[in-house]
């Protein structure tokens, strides 16, 4: 190649835009698609992958998604993974073969689910181990650490669940918002502190949500590629909320508070899912101290929502809506979690929440940046630093209450 070519050989002379006829446009779409079809047909017919077949049995994967213990025994919903359909041959409970009924029967195609009903006389409060043996002799284990009867999903539960959801979601946010009159009295320094506090507690929630989402994703069927799904969902929700939130420029005041409330609401949706799922999993006696811990934990969220409103007081009704926005998703999460819980959906919800929280962190950060002149001299204001540390510490301290 002539790498000494002068610039005049590179620059193409501007040409008038050519108008292509419609059929050519269609042709240039059809041709590559036609080729794709040709390649796919060749792949299916000639099976070039045969040469790579070394006789090894297909990789099998089985994920246990749901478990119900009732007076007819143990019921498990399994989802197949791997490259080939799975044939469930036998089921053991506590190292003993047991009769079982698979519904629907037959081979399990990739990502297909089936219920396995085992008439096993489980023992209250004791551990049981279920082992599924496939046609190839591969085994998949599911541990029941504490056998308790699974609460039946029943419409009569919706109200008590809503009460509990409101208690861990709406009530603490509302209590946090009630600090608003006190917050109004703070000066510029105090405002910086409060906003930094909000960022601190949101940062904690972001890490917490992401960690939980990734952990749940690890329990989901491998084919869902849970960890990638979590990261992508977080990024997309971040970008989506970014675009929506900025339609009318940088949000401040009520707009910013609403964004914070949405982010926290999505996080609380995840918390609700976890509580609901815990009920379904049979970990029913969660205990008052846990609920109380959650409540304390979530009060700080209310303070965070109130912070951007200090300079632009909204109507009183706005506080009600903000409390509902941030807290009510906990109720929805509880219902959803107790009725149709699968790890991949819970992971997805938490990932969306993480993205939303990240977006709020950025918005509050921008707001904080503009609020304080001292940044311009390159210094980090002490109030900001103190607020961040206080926010993180507060969340950590209250989170200790809810970690078992």
């Amino acid at each position, binding site marked *: 190649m002539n790498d000494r070519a002068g610039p005049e050989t590179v620059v193409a002379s501007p040409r008038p835009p050519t108008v292509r006829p419609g059929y050519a446009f269609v042709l240039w779409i059809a041709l590559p698609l036609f080729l794709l079809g040709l390649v796919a047909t060749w792949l299916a017919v000639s099976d070039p992958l045969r040469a790579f077949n070394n006789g090894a049995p297909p990789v099998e994967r089985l994920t246990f998604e749901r478990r119900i*213990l009732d*007076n007819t*025994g143990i019921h498990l919903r399994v989802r197949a993974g791997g490259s080939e359909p799975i*044939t469930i*041959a*036998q*089921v*053991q409970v506590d*190292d*003993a*073969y*047991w*009769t*079982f009924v698979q519904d629907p029967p037959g081979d399990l195609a990739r990502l297909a689910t089936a219920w396995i009903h*085992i*008439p096993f*006389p*489980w*023992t*209250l*409060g004791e551990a049981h181990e279920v*082992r599924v*043996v*496939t*046609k190839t*002799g*591969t*085994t998949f284990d599911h541990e029941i*650490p*504490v056998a*308790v009867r699974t*609460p039946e999903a*029943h419409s*009569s*539960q919706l109200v*008590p669940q809503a*009460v*509990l959801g409101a208690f861990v979601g709406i009530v603490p946010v509302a209590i946090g918002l009630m600090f608003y009159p006190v917050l109004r009295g703070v000066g510029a320094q105090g405002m910086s502190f409060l906003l930094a506090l909000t960022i601190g507690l949101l940062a904690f929630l972001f890490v917490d949500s992401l960690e*939980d989402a990734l*952990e*749940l994703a690890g329990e989901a069927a491998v084919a869902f590629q849970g960890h990638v799904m979590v990261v992508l969902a977080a990024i997309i929700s971040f970008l989506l909320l970014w675009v929506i939130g900025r339609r009318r420029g940088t949000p401040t005041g009520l707009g910013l508070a609403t964004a914070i409330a949405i982010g926290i609401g999505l996080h609380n949706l995840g*918390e609700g899912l*976890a*509580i609901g*799922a*815990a009920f379904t*999993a049979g*970990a*029913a*006696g*969660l*205990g*008052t*101290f*846990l*609920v*109380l811990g959650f409540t304390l934990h979530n009060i700080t969220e209310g303070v965070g929502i109130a912070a951007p409103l200090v300079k632009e007081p909204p109507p009183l009704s706005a506080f009600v809506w903000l409390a509902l926005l941030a807290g009510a998703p906990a109720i929805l999460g509880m219902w959803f979690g107790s009725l149709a819980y699968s790890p991949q959906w819970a992971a997805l919800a938490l990932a969306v929440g993480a993205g939303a929280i990240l977006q709020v962190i950025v918005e509050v950060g921008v707001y904080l940046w503009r609020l304080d002149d001292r940044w311009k001299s390159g210094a980090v204001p002490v109030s900001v630093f103190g607020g961040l540390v206080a926010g993180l510490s507060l969340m950590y301290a209250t989170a200790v209450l*809810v*970690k*078992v």
Partner: protein
Amino acid sequence: MRNWLRETVNRRHLLWGSLATASGFLIGGAAATGQSSHAERGSAPPYDANGAGHHGAHGHMITVGDVGNARNGFDPTSLLTDWNTGVVSSLPDGRTLRTFEIIGEDKEIEIAPGILFPAWTYNGRVPGPSLRVTEGDRVRIIFQNNGSHRHSIHFHGIHSARMDGIPGAGEIGPGEEFIYEFDALPFGCHLYHCHALPLKRHIHKGMYGAFIIDPDPARHPEQADVARSRLLGTPENREWQEFVMVMNGFDTNFDGENEVYAVNTVAHHYAKHPITVIRGRPVRIYLINVVEFDPINSLHLHGNFFDYYDHGTTLTPTLRTIDTVMQCQAQRGILEFTYRAHETGLYMFHAHQAEFTELGWMGMFDVVEAAA
């Protein structure tokens, strides 16, 4: 947050939580969300399907379905009695020569309904053919290895070092042939197995079988009657109902533990297809333990007691009137008993390691009256 959802909730937490719920009542609705109180638990058992829907003597604790014997090429019921006495000829000195041909081959077998196991076999079956000879016979085994690995046949018995079936003395590669030759001594209930390395794998893959040497009545004049009753083909022997039971197990997921335990390979086969026994006639079982990964196996007989001949090398029992016998791997013996004084019906037998029983090593005798 997720931690209390996670399956690490232990019993202490559960009780703690329940107590807190019961005493706190911070949330009025908590008790109605489906958590039953201790009082409710007391009155309503968590599981009540136990009484209903029990099929057979083992209820729900059994494998589902049945194994395709046609696909396997062998039926565990016929394995009980299909003695292979070889091709009989005479040596110049007048002694009997028994010639056996055994082929080693890889074969996928069904060890429990729907569970396929990539076995290594003698003559396409697990356990391999039950070889039966008479004390003092010359035994010649022509072993053709058509498998994918090096194999051998190591016979328990008395023989020379070069006939031992170990690496360097009778272990052969795929496509090769070796002839083992030795005299059948001592009489008893023996076994043979592959001694190629790694030993564990070759044994649990299925390369083993029964090797029975019947006593020669002429050599035991003081107990000739007992010896004749064991010698296959005599009128005295025909009175007995003889079965060979090889206790084995299969590790299907390579974790060094067996997912399936059985006698004669197929889990629960004799539970689903009980072994017919005529009430008036005595029963003799040649019992051999080849289970891998577990140090001990056993047999327990329900509703009866038996006499036991350790290794089968004596004509008088080594244990009398026992109902359970324990065997280390490669230990074997002869059980003798009768249901003469019993009513007809199903009588269970199983390993008295409950785990083995529940993973397939359990069967039934169906004691019936002789047809008129």
